[in-house]
């Protein structure tokens, strides 16, 4: 049976790969490839945030009664990542390689320290605690890409 941990961790790795591809094109200043690759990455990570914010976090809060704790922190970190993603978009539009790489360097660490907390704690906790894991995964799969 698929767990939330596996399902979401796989999606993290997919986003990582997309970021690595986009970054490599930007480093070579191949903007014809970098621009669409960056958009693909942004769509993927935004979709990931939406799966959590629309489905996983509300379900977590409903079933555990923990409204202000872990999900609050995770949402705050989504907000910070979205700030950086907006800067990434601007660097892509301006074809500014240095800005782009500065942004991805910071964004990558921000994403990874966020992922470590989710994969090490939040997802295993939801697998353990939520009564309807399969249903939650199904609902997350339905979130519009």
């Amino acid at each position, binding site marked *: 049976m698929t767990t939330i941990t596996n399902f979401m961790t796989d999606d993290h790795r997919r986003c*990582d*790969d997309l*970021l*690595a*591809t986009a*970054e*490599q094109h930007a*480093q070579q200043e191949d903007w014809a490839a970098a621009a669409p690759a960056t958009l693909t990455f942004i769509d993927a990570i935004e979709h990931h945030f939406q799966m959590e914010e629309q489905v996983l976090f509300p379900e977590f809060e409903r079933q555990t009664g*923990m*409204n*202000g*704790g*872990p999900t*609050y*922190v*995770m949402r*705050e*970190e989504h907000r*910070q990542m979205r700030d950086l993603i907006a800067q990434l978009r601007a660097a892509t539009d301006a074809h500014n390689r240095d800005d782009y*790489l*500065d*942004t*991805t*360097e*910071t964004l*990558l*660490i*921000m994403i*990874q*320290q966020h*992922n*470590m*907390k989710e*994969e*090490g*704690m*939040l997802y*295993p*906790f939801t697998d*353990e*605690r939520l009564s309807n894991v399969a249903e939650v995964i199904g609902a997350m799969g339905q979130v519009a890409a």
Partner: protein
Amino acid sequence: MYAGISLQQAPPLSVPGRFFLTAPWFGVAAALLLLFDGEALLASRWSPAMLAATHGLALGFIATIMLGATQQLLPVLASAIIPRPRPVATLIHLLWLPGVALLMAAFLLLRPWLFHAAATLLSAALAIFIGTAGHALYRSESSSDSAAGMRLALLGLLAALTCGVLLAFGLAGTLPLWRPRLTNLHLAFGLIGWIALLLMAVAWQVVPMFQITPPYPAPLRVRAARGLLLLLAGKALALGLSGTAAVVLDQGCNIALAGLLAAFAIATLRLQRQARRKVRDSHRDFWRLGMVGLLLSILCWAVSLVFSHPVLPLLTATLFLLGFALAVITGMLLKIVAFLLWLHLQSLRDALLQAGKEAFSVPKMNAMIPSRHGEWLLRILIAAQIATVVAVLAPRFMAIPAALLWLLHFGYLGSITGYAMYRYHRIRVRVEPHVAAIHAPGTRPRTTASGG
């Protein structure tokens, strides 16, 4: 399981910051010893200056950064939280710094009271560190491998400390000095059980996630860490035996330890070759350099099994400490400091926005610590490492150039991190009067805490 969950409580910047700011200056002190007493220092592993310099490096630089970084990384890597982080860090730091300085002085001056004082301060600092970090880790319900690895590394540290205290009392004349067998065990627990084990536990997460590589093979994670500690326990057991049995057990453990460490280094290099992230990043190069240093150290040790020469153990330890541990830690330090400054500046900006004030644009990591600094440090480090290896072989000619390169390395590192933190501090001082409260990243503003 999972009775509670918490993802907040990133400690205040000053918690790791004080360790990161002070550590490079112990490196400078060790380099000065090499500069003024190089030939005598390199004459033997037992020379007073050598012991002072190695402890300055291993405790003053490497362990100081590891103490600070562990307090910072526990919540992220292991979901483990040290309550009241600031007073705990203050206490550890205030005991630790004079402890290391006194220990260096004790080796140089060989006064019993200095050994007693140093052993007391260092054990008090580490007792608090192991107690608080251990408590947080054992309470944490994180399922990550790194949490398990960090728990094991704390046991390694405890064992290294115990041996170290016994040796300090031996040198002070209070206890019989059990040298070299207890010294070798002290080294094995300190270098492998604490430094290598902790760096491995960090690597399992940091290498795949920051460099976008496949994960480490499962046998090289927690199982390898448990194996390392069991083998070290085997070496401790050999200490209690005598005759052939002791030699066979000890050497058997050594060979297995070398095999495990080599497997870890080779796996890391292989993962890096498969990295999806191809962008140039000195952080990756510091890790790569460290793994090459580790492999060379193991090679040196293997050669010493066949040819017995007094220079080989010295080279093995040099390559391990300066080639492996120092390279990885320097690379990690630059990355962690740059990221933490960005994260805390982001909180300052949020606080300004919340107060309805005009915010500033947050300088990103590369603006706080430009990547060219990392690249230069890497070059200087490689030059210093090569010069030191040559100096071990020919102290008369190379001790001074090696010492100058280390002075440059540690002075440069201390200035980069110090200047970046000073810039953060200046921004903070400017912002603080305009906001009611600044919250550490990842903590909830109190004003909305009741909103739920």
